[in-house]
Structure formats: C-alpha cells, structure tokens
C-alpha cells in the first residue's frame, strides 16, 4: 500500500511537469519588447526615424575615402590610407568595405522606417517621416553611385535570409534616384527648408541638382584620353536639368554672409547649410568619444594636446597645389586655415590653439605667438612688417616655443625666434619635407569646435554639424552644369557669385583664368574650362568631402593624380590587373562572396582578376 502511494505521488509530480510543459518552454524576455510592438506607436516609430538619421553619421566614418588619391591632400607620416592614395587598393580593402556597408546600413535603416510605417498607428506626421526616410535613402544611393557606379537598388527592408541582390545598371541607378528626388522636391508635406537637420524640399532639390550633374557626366560625355582629362560631350539634357534645378536652389539662398562667418562655430544651422548631419554635445552619451573628428583631419601635427594644441592627425595634409590656388585678397585663405596659433601656458581653451576663439581680442593682442602661417603670396617685406608689428609676441617661452613664422610656399620660408624675440634661424625647406615638421602647414579651421574638451581633443571631440549640402557648393554645381550645358556666361555668373563673396576678383571668361604655377613660377591659364570650376571648388570647399568624387565625375581623376599626387607615377599606378583604370571603388570581395546576385564578373573595371586577353 505504502509503495503504491509513493508511486502515485511521484507519477503525479511527473505529470504536473508534463502538463505545464509548453508554458515552461516559452522564454519570457523581460528586458525588451518585440520590434513590432515597439515601433507600432508614434513615440516608438519616431525613434526608428531618428535611427535612420543617426545612421547617416557612419557614411563619414572615414575621411580618406573622400580625400586620398587626389590633388588636394597628401599623407606624410601615416598617409591617410596608402592604398587609397597610391591606388593599390583591392576588393579586400576594409575602408571601401566599411563605406559600402555603412551606406547600405543607411539604406536599410530608411527602408526599416518605410516597413514599420505600415505597422504603426496613424498619426499626422507619419507620411512626412516616410518622405524624410526616402530622402535619406536617396542620399546614400547618390554616394553609392559616385563611388561604385551602378549598384543594387533595394527598396524593401531586408529582414530575411534572402541573398540575391544583383547590381542595377548605372542608368537604372540614376533614373531611380532622380525619380525619387523629383517627387520629394515637389512634395506637399516636406517643409520648404529645415535648419534642424531634417530633410526638406530644398535639400531634395539641391541633391537632385548634384545627381543630374553626375548623371550628365556619366551618361552624356565620353572620355577621350584619361591622362589629359579630355572628353566629348554627347548630350545635354541632364546638364540642363542640373542647371535648372541648381538655379532654383541658388535663387533662394543669396550668398550674403562672409566666408569666415559662414563657418563660424557660433553660426551653425545658417541659411547656407541646406542639409547637415546633426551633432550636439548634449545628445552625446560620452562627451569624449561621442562626437566626430573632422576638425582633426587636415593639416600637419601641431604638437601635443597637453601643450594646448588642437590635435591634427597629419595624415591628410593640404598640398602646396591647394595653397597656391589662393590669391591675395581672397578671404578664404584666412577663413579656411588657422594662420595664427598662440602659445600655451596652462589654461586649456583660452590659450594655445583655442585662444583664437575663446580669448578676448585684447588678450590675443598681447599673447605670445606659437605659429604664424602667411600665405605663399605674402612678400618678405610684408613678413618683415609683421615681425615689427608683433615683436612683443614673438618671444615665446611657453609650451610651444620658440615662435615660428612659416610661409606656405614652395620652398617654405621658415623663421625660428629666440625667447628674446630675435631671429634664431631663417631657412628655406622644400614643401614636402616641411609636411613632416610640427606646425609647418596650417590646420583647416572651418570645422573647429572651440568647446572641445581636453580629454576628447585627440578623439571624437568635435560636435559641429556635418554639412552635406552647402549653398555655395550648389552655386558651383550650377556653374558646372551651365558650363556643360553650353551656357558659359551663366556658368561665369555663378562662379563669380562665389568669388565675389570671398573678395576674389570676378572672372570675365574661362579662357582668361590664370593661376600661379609654383613649379615654373609663372601664371598659367587652365587646360580646359572644367579646370577653372575644379580650382574654384578646391578654394571654396577645402576639407569638405567632395574632391575624389569631383575628380571622378569630371573625368579628371587620372590627370590630376598624375600631375599632383606623388604616389601616382604613371597611369599604371591607377590600372588594375585587367588593364583597366580604377575609376570606381571595387565592389567589396565580401559582397561578391555573400551576395548571390553579384559574382566576380560583375566587379568594377580595374579590379577583376581576368586579364584582358
């Protein structure tokens, strides 16, 4: 009897276990709710839209991809990325892979907004957010098309194991982006302009102008000779559309503020910033690493942060070619480069590099000078006059002593002072070796964030907005579009608007344009009219991430690198194993491995393994 009771009791226990089995095997996730639940409310859905904007930051994780391998920037010590600069890059390149992945990360984040919008409760702003997401997606596709050519156009959120995503043709790619942006620029819900960082009709239009222009070059011109940058124009419709669209943007934004004011740290979200990726100290989870490092990228190393200097990585130095493009009277030299750096004793922020922003004018007039970098055209007499005027400031004894005056010329004139303010040495060194010296080449100051904390100074401590669509750039887009459409006078008009604001003399014709050639020490005219536009873009847009794409678009990539990039010695340097020039970035090897829609035959020219036999 006793036994039976025990058996029954034990069996009962086992059976209780059995009955609750299915419940028992359901894991409760207490620390999260499902994505569908979270994004089905207005509040939740808005955070998903924020993520699409947030993702855009990753497009600019690496500056070398936009700058290396051009005429304007050169690496010296750690050379931004030698494989990009010397065009030895392969489909294995991490930088390229990250760019590709990040751009598609933006596409997928935007597609996620559109996907969850259908599952989200209705509310008045929902349609607007969908259009914003489409703008973000178009921006990513624009950069993709400029870096990789025709790419897979994906309009649906990827949330399955699907692996087949073939490349679209270049025409399909452009047609798709143009159709999207045309619709958005005529939207009835997007606001006309927006300065808080959201997409607007103006932003859609500005981007559309750029896409039209790029489509014009890619689809309506043919390359004649890469080494000479010569080409033939075969059609004008895209250029005309580009010109018309750019004109509409420019008409709405006159260039009224000075160039210095435009880039002043206190003047963010100004009228010329059509669309910008937003950064804000208060939104950062960690002030020392949550920002970006655009301010640390261009120029030579200035000295350690502990010496009150701005950290400059010195892997993207500005080339002498770029400096020689600035003429006397052009305010952009002083507004672009930090030409006077003060000495540092102990106060972070109000001494040293940051004194320029944070110290009073009267203090600055008394402060010891660490570096002064006059432009190439400043004469020896003018330098002598400067010495006299600032005699009491050239006696540096602080962290960055002795005081130095360094003229950014070829060769560089380099004056070192003693602590009593008298000259210790006055020599000339060639520009390229000057790049290896501390503080010889002034840093780009357009992106400076004077509130950079000392702790964050070497890392991601900059919280300036990242301007992606900038009014004066669209003026130059208009100029280029009109030029290509055959309307030289309209082209000159837009070019001169930009020059006038900077205080540079107006041009009367493209043919009449000359620039100083430091090699031959003479003024020489440009080879082609497009050179004039590219020179102006160089002056106006130093440090903005357009140059590589500009040179590729205008078919000048090979010519400009041959002439001004010392890492490119012959066309062979830019030619792949298949005998083709590397006009685009390679589709990453990983994508070819993972995406069943793309195989090695679809690789961009210059990166395919097959020889051209």
């Amino acid at each position: 009897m006793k036994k039976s009771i025990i058996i029954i009791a034990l069996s009962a226990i086992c059976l209780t276990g059995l009955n609750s089995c299915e419940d028992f095997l359901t894991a409760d996730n207490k620390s999260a709710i499902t994505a569908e639940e979270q994004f089905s409310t207005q509040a939740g859905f808005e955070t998903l839209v924020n993520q699409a904007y947030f993702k855009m930051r990753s497009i600019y994780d690496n500056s070398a991809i936009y700058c290396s391998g051009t005429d304007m920037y050169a690496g010296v010590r750690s050379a931004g990325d030698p494989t990009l600069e010397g065009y030895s890059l392969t489909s294995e390149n991490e930088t390229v892979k990250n760019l590709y992945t990040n751009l598609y990360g933006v596409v997928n984040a935007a597609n996620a907004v559109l996907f969850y919008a259908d599952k989200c409760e209705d509310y008045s702003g929902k349609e607007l957010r969908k259009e914003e997401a489409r703008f973000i997606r178009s921006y990513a596709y624009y950069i993709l098309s400029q870096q990789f050519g025709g790419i897979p156009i994906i309009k649906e959120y990827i949330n399955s194991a699907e692996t087949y995503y073939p490349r679209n043709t270049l025409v399909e790619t452009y047609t798709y982006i143009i159709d999207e942006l045309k619709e958005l620029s005529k939207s009835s819900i997007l606001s006309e302009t927006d300065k808080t960082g959201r997409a607007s009709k103006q932003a859609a239009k500005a981007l559309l102008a750029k896409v039209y222009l790029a489509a014009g070059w890619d689809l309506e011109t043919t390359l004649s000779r890469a080494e000479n940058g010569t080409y033939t124009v075969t059609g004008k419709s895209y250029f005309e559309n580009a010109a018309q669209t750019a004109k509409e943007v420019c008409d709405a934004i006159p260039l009224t503020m000075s160039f210095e004011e435009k880039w002043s740290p206190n003047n963010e979200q100004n009228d010329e910033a059509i669309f910008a990726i937003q950064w804000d100290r208060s939104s950062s989870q960690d002030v020392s690493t949550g920002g970006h490092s655009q301010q640390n990228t261009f120029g030579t190393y200035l000295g350690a942060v502990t010496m009150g200097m701005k950290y400059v990585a010195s892997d993207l130095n500005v080339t002498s070619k770029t400096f020689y493009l600035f003429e006397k009277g052009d305010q952009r030299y002083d507004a672009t480069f930090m030409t006077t750096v003060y000495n540092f004793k102990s106060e972070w922020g109000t001494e040293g590099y940051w004194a320029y922003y944070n110290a009073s004018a009267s203090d600055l007039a008394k402060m010891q000078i660490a570096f002064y970098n006059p432009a190439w055209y400043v004469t020896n007499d003018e330098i002598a006059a400067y010495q006299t005027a600032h005699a009491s400031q050239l006696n540096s004894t602080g962290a960055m002593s002795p005081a130095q005056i360094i003229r950014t010329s070829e060769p560089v004139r380099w004056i070192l002072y003693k602590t009593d303010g008298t000259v210790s040495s006055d020599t000339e060194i060639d520009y390229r070796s000057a790049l290896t010296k501390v503080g010889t080449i002034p840093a780009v100051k357009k992106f400076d964030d004077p509130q950079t904390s000392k702790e964050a100074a070497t890392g991601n401590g900059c919280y300036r907005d990242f301007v992606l669509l900038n009014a004066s750039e669209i003026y130059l887009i208009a100029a280029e579009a009109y030029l290509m459409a055959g309307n030289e006078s309209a082209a000159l008009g837009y070019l001169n608007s930009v020059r006038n604001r900077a205080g540079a003399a107006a041009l009367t014709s493209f043919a009449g344009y000359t620039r100083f050639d430091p090699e031959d020490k003479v003024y020489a005219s440009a080879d082609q009219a497009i050179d004039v536009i590219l020179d102006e873009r160089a002056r106006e847009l130093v440090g903005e991430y357009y140059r590589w794409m500009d040179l590729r678009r205008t078919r000048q990539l090979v010519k400009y690198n041959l002439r001004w990039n010392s890492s490119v010695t012959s066309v062979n340097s830019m030619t792949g194993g298949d005998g083709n020039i590397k006009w685009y970035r390679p589709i990453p090897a990983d994508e070819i491995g993972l995406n069943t829609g793309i195989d090695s035959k679809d690789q961009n020219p210059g990166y395919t393994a097959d020889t051209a036999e």
Partner: protein
Amino acid sequence: MKINKLTKQMTLTLILGLVCMISLAQEKMITGKVSDAAGISMIGVTVTVQGTTNGTITDADGKFSIKAQKENKLQFSFIGFDTQLIEVGNQTNINVTLKEQAMDIDEVVVVGYGTMKKSDLTGSVGSVGSEDLVQKGTPSLLESMQGSVAGVSITQSGGRNQAGFDIQIRGKSSINADVTPLYVVDGVICGDIDFLNPQDIERIDILKDASSTAIYGSRATAGVVQVTTKSGSSAGKKAEAKPVVSYDGYYGLSQIARMPDFMDGQEFYNFRFLQFATTSETTSQPVYRMLQADNQQSMLYDGTSKYVLPEALKNGETTDWPSMVTQNSNEQNHYIAVSGSSQSVNYHFGAGFNQNEGTYVGDNESKFNLKGSIDSEINKYFSAGMNFNLANSVNDYGSDEGIKVAYRMNPYNKPYDSEGNLNLKPGNFQSMGTAANQFTDAYNPLVYLNDQEKEKKSYRILGNLYLEVRPIKNVSIKSTFSPNYSHARTGEYTGSATGATATANYTSTESFDWTWDNQINYNLTSGDHNFAAMGLYSMNSYNYEKYYISVINPTVGTLWNNLGTGSTGEGEKPTVSSEYSESSLTSYALRANYSYKGKYIVTATVRSDGSSKFSEGHKWGTFPSAAIAWRASEEEFMKNEWLSNLKLRLSYGVTGNNSGIGNYATHTTGAGPNYYAFGSTIAPAYYPSGIVNGSLSWETTAETDFGIDFGLFANRVSGTIDIYNKDSKDLLYIRSLPLVSGGGTLTDNIGNVRNRGIEFSLNTVNIKKKNLTWETSFSFAANKNEVLEINGTSDFIINSDNPITKSLFVGEAVNNIYSYGWNGIVSDKTMTVPDNNASAKGGFTPGTQVKEADYYYSIYGWTEGMPIIEDSNNDGVIDADNDKKVRGNQDPAWTANISSSLTYKNWDFSFSIYTKQNYKVLSSFLYEYYNYAYRGYQHLNMDYYIPAGTLVNCGGINDDGTYINPVYQEQTHYGEFPFPNGNSVTNYGAGTLWLDKGNSNLASIVDASYWKVKYIIVGYTFPKPMLSRIGVEKLRVYLNVTNPFVISSYKGFDPEWAGTATKNDGPSTINYQLGVNLKF
C-alpha cells in the same frame, strides 16, 4: 588524534587480553606472516577470527599471532587488497600473500544518470583518477586533466592566471566558437568546472562517443565531462569505516621563463635608423638615404647640440621593460578533508584554499572551497542524501593597459627621471630631453599599474538533494533536485594619473538554474541474463541577471565601493544598465542495457529535448543511440595465458546542440538607444535588433565509433583503440548576410562538418619488482576535420570580420587559415624567368636570367627587400580571388602524451610530456611586434634584409646634406624579414599584404607546434612503521617542477596560447612546488 589512537589501541589490547583469558582450552596460538605479491612484509593488516571480535594487526615485520580454534577461519583484510579467508585446521603457522585488488576490470565508471562497471561499457569513455589529477600540481582542474585522455585536447587560452582553458573532445563538430563539452558535477550540469579544487575530485570520466553521450541528448555534441567529487562512499561502501583525515597541499614558486627575444638597445637602434631611411626613387632597387629632419627625429636630436639615442646606447642607458611589470610569484594550495561512514550514513567534508599570484604585477587569485556530502540509507525502502559545493574566489587583475604598454616600450624609454621619480610619459620629448623629437606619448606602464584596479569576486553554490525509493524488488525511483547558483561582482577603477577622468564601475551578474531529474531504474539478473533499464523525466530552468553602473570622479581611495560620491559627468547620459534573460529545457530519456554472461552487451538510449530557444514547432529534437560490445576474452576458445582482456565495441548515436545561439535568438526586439540631435533637441534612436530566422532548430551530430579494449600478460600491458566518424549537420551558424543588408547577420541551420579520427592509449607496467616499479602510459589522437557543406548554395563563406581565421570552405577544416602566401624576400640575386602569364605581363622572356628585384618590380611593383607574395595563378596580379588559399589548420593534426612513473623503495619519480603537432596560428603578438608601421615601439629581434649600399648609420647630417661618419651596408644582407625603411608608400618596406590587419597578415601566421614537459615529480613516502608510531597512515612529500621545458619554433610567449588576444598574452612560467600528502 594521536592520543585518540593510542587510547584505542590500548582499549583493543585490553579487550583482546580479556578475550584470551576467558577463551576455551582447545584454542591454540597461531603465528604467521603477511606479505604482498612482491614479497614485501605488510604492516597493519587486520587479522580476525571470522564471526568473532577476536582480532589483531600485523607488526612492522608483517608478523602476527592470534588464538583460534581448529574449525575457525582467519580473515586477512587490508585496504586496496582482496580479503582472504583461511581455514585454521591443523596449522599453527600461516603465511599469507595478499593480492592487490584488480581495479581495472571492476572499475566503476560514471555514465549519465548512473554508474556502470567498466567491463560492461559499450561506449568510449576515458577516465582520470584522483591521483593523476593531484599529482600535476595545478590549481585548475582542466589543466590537471591535460593529456590524460586520448582525444581530449585541453589548451590554456592565455598567459595570465585567469586566462582559463579551452577543451575540445574529438575535434570541432560545430562552427560556433564557444561550444564546450557538457560538465556534469555529481550529476549537476554546470557551465564550467574552474571553481573546483583538483584535490576534491574523486574521478573524472569523459564520455566521448555519441552512444555514451546521447543520454544527455541535445547538450552533448561536444562530449560530456563527468566530475565526481569525493564523498563518503568513495572509499567503497562499507558498513563501518573509521574517519580518515587527509591533507594535501603544496607551496610553490613560479618563475618567468622563455621570454621572447625582443630587441636590445643596439638592435633597436639599428632598426630605428633604417625606419627613417627614405627614397624617392622609383626603381626596382632604390637607394635609401636619410634627410636631416628624419635623422634628427630618428636619433632624437635634442634641438641644440646632441643626439640622445646614440648617447644612451653608448652609456648603456637602456631598460628591460617587461621585467618591470612581470614577477616571479608564489602559489599555494591546501585541501583538508574528513570522510567515513557509520551504519547507514556515509559522509565527506572538505575545505580547500588555493592562492596564486600571476605573472604580472597585480594579478592574484585566491579561492576557497567548502564541500560536504552525506548519503544515508534510511531504511529498506528509502535512501536520501545531499551534496554541496561552495566556492568563493577573488581575482585581482594587474592593469591591462600597463601590461600592453610595457611590452611596447623600447629599451630607450626612461621609466624614471634623474631624481628617481616616475616619468609620466617615458618616451616623450620631456623624458628624452629633446625639444620635440620623441618616441611616443604613451603613459608609463608603472603609472597604469598604480592607477588601475580591477577585482572580481565570485560565489558559487552547487548542490543536489535526492530521495531514492525502492518500492519493490529490482525497482528504484530517484528524484534529484539540483540548484546551481553563481554570483560575480567585478569592480574596476581607473584613476586620473594619466590625465583621464577617474572612472569607476561595478558589474554584478547573477545566474541561477535548477534541474529536476526523476528517474526510474529497473534491474533484473536472471541466470546469465542481466537486464537494466532507466527512464528519465527532467526539467531545467535557467535565468541570468546583470546590473552595471559606471561613474566618474568618485571619492579618491574608495575605488568602486562608494559610487554615490561620483557623478555621471556633465552632458553625459548615466551609464547604468541591467539585463535579464532566461531559458528552459524539458527532456525525456530511456536507456536499456542487456548483457548475456557478461560477454555480449547491448545498450540503447533515446532522449527527447524541448528547448525554449526555438519557436513553436521547432522546439523538440530526438536523439537515439545504440551500441554493442563483445568481451571476446571471456569466450572459452580465447582463454589463454597472455590475454587478460579483449573487448570489441561498436556504437552509433545522435546528439544535438543549441548552445551557439542566444536565449532570444528567435525574437526581434527593439534595440538601442543611440542618441541623435535635431538642432539641440535630443532624439533617442531605436532599431530592430536584427534579422531572425523563425525556423531555427537543433544542430545534430551522428557518430559511429569502433573500439577495442585489450589487456595482455595479466594486464601488464593494456590499452584502448578507438576510431570514429562524426557527421554534424544543420549547424547553427551566424552567417553574414550580403553587405547590402548593412552588415546584417543571421543565425541559420547551415552546413555539415565531419570529424574522423583515431585514438590510442597504452599503459604498460615495464618493471614490477619488489623494490622497483616502472609504469608508462602513452596516448595519441589524430583528428581530421572537414566542412562537407556550407549552405547548399556556395562552397565558401568569407568571414568579413576575421577572414583569415573564420572563413569556411567546403573540403577544408572549420578552423582553417585562409590567406595569401609569403614566399621570401625580393632580393638582388638573379633568377630564371618562369614561363607564365605574369612574366608575359612584365615583358620578360621565359628562361632568361634577370634580377629578382627587376622581375618583381616591373610586374608587381615590389622593390628590393620587400616580401614576395605568392601569385598562385601566376597572372601577374595579387588578388584575393585567385591568390588567397587555405594555408593550414588551426587545430593540430595530432596530439600525444607520454607519462611515466618509477617507484624505487620509498622514492617515486614521474614526468609527463605533451605535444600538439602541425597546426598554425594567427598571432596577435607577432602582428604587434613585427609591425613596421610602429617606429617608436619595441619589436621582436628580426633578421631583416638590408640592400647593399643602404645608409645604415651616421653621426649626423650637415645642413648641406652630407653625412658625418656615414656607414653603408657593404654587402647585401639576405635576412628572412623584409627590409624596414621609412617609405610610407611601401608601408615602410612591408608592403600592404605582409602585415596589414585590414588586408592580410602573413608574418603573424606561423606554425606553433610544440613539445612540452608538463611536470617532473620526485616524491618520498615515509615508511609505514615509522608513521604508525605517530598515528599517521600515509605521509608523502614531493617536489614538482611544472612546465620545465618547451620545444617550439614559435617566437612569441608560449606556443600553447599563441593564438590569444594581446591582452591575455604573457610569458610562460616554470613552477617549483613542494608538497605534502598526509593521511591519518
């Protein structure tokens, strides 16, 4: 205890005396001697008259005398020997030879949910006994198992003392990195066994083949490690056993050994000079010269008069940085236990303490263990018992940053200034006394050591409680509840000495799981038939919680203990997080064993598991197995003198696995937040956590095993041979989606992997004489791992994060090495132009003689001194698609272990040698210390190429560019490493594929095969007579030297952990331990 014993002996003598006095007249006095098989007199053998309390103990000469009657039987018993009964009859002198218990055959092996006689086993099980474990003298249980069982590969995963061990049984059957064997401690399944003290272990049984492991079904794919801790019944079930107290302990010194060959002052000087030599020539053999500015930077010109570097070299002012952060350290281990039994209760209590300092200053670990076990037979129907293990460990960690930086410091960096104060930045211009030229802005490692604290405290409680009911004959029902709790707290503090904001953080994790097993056992023996069956219903539930907080600037000196005084910092979001997750498993299992005459044995099992990790409809998996064995040696026709045992086994089984996926792998949740801003409005951003695959289910492995167990010459020679084939399919694999997904990944059941191998072990008693015993055991295992299928559509997957070590290819091993090839250095020697497309591309005529430099330069752009990258398809282009190949395997082709022990009189001597052969690693260490891009860092001493004519030294450069006392390389030096120089275009001479993390990493892919002498032990056991006088049963002292010799071509720290991440890396040590084993 001594007094106690004396009292007892006196009492016994007294009683015996009384017995004698009242004894009857027909009793006679019997004398004799007891000896063992070798003829040695045995002391302390209990001699009793059977059925009476009359008894005695043999003296120091093995002699006894006892009164007995003619019809009595004398019983001779001694632990570890077979008891003998001898009829008295007419004898008055009885000499007895006791036989040692034949352990091998009747050894009881712990299998899942039960035990089994070794002779009845049908599967492949390897066992390690407590003595084997203890004698290695290691604080870690896993380390003490190293080399003990063929086919079980155990490897230390790093050079720091908390680095842990990786264990792999019969190759890698899953693609996931972290699939570990199932650890079962006294029936409780737990995640690791690091918390146990080796001295507390009774035995370890490793279930290797699927028929053995299938009883654990879904959790057993990687094998099962059954740990049995010491308990009251482990000394053998006896009605009454006096309490035995034992103490085992050692004290040791550990000495840093085999430091890698870093550059000394002169070597670093030479290297650094070359790293600033530049060229602007675009030829195949550029001549390297130096610019003044570079010379000043390289030799640290002080800005006014002198070069600091050559001066320091001349004056011998260099520093051995690694020695400043490493230490020769102490270790100790103590374990004390008492066990015994009374009428119906067996008990065992133990306490252990282990402490060992690490190789790095600040590393320290101390562990306490408490252990208790009680089994009681309540009455005829009921038994109950419990078993618990408590462990507490405290780990202190030296500063990771300090250690990392210390190795990077070159010999010229100055730790102290002229007044003996620490230099904050030993390589900067201030420390070096130069105006601007410097090596590095890195902080002094010694500053980090003082400024960073990290401590981890862990608590483990593991136990079980059972009730067993035997309601009817042959049936028992057992219900066991096993809770398992662990808590860990990690505190970290980083001070502000390096100018950073002081931060402190506190992490607390807690996990609890319980298992409830309900078992029914049925046993029936009828004549020659023996049948046993077991049914199981089991439930398991697991949950985990984590809490984390981090603040800045807490009160100085309070570390992480008063975080409330810190703040979250201006503009910063508070860094607080918490986490929860859970999972559950329900299982049913059946097992049946049948044997006929102990000769023919059949086993079958089936287990069905349901897991909460999978979606509805995919939760359940069923895992069957079957095995047969034939004890051929039991057959009449096989019986002969020399064959003592021969058993053939054949088994097949299926097991499963789901450990590679998270608890919520089939849920998509909202993840985040990121913070964006519109203007200055903060905008939190959330996103879907990832892409999930709802139809995920179990990965399964089917294994066939054939084994032979043999024993020859009365088991003087015994061994086991196993061959197996293990096919794993539907592997859970986190695969990358196309990059167009934005870098998404997806866990999927894809792929098929095969492991095939052979295991062999052989134990021999080479000599067995009166005073001399010599035994040797040898084990060998070879495993071939091969990916059979990846996902049905493609035959390879390149892992984007770790292309070299984590890519998969059909036909290759899972852990392969995929890379370009490195074929030496472009030299100035002549070569014969090969007939291929590459030559044609360069315009060379096949068969002609050209200079290597010209050839490689015109085709590939490599100048003299640069590495030659293999152009596998000879097309003149180095590209991933054609030139990257599988270049080796990260798992060894074979491993072997030899251990031997020699006993001479009271002395014993033993050693063990372990080897892993033919495998490659990707070494982060070599990447860091071969790297040409780091000019201020320390490097390994490399034999690099130097072209003739290179400027290799000078005493300075004049303003006009002329050199002061220039030294040129007269003849080409044909070194095996590339020519280091200052040309950034060629990546400082290394090229972009030789050592570049993003692209390729050839220089750090090396063979790491090694031979290692694991230990050498000399011990002395005090003679029994001497001990029995002081009431001690056993006393042995020993000296153990661990890891005294290593043979390997690997240039880093220790080949055993060559593949580890830099922060876990560190030098190997030689440990000297003085230990005691005491029993009374």
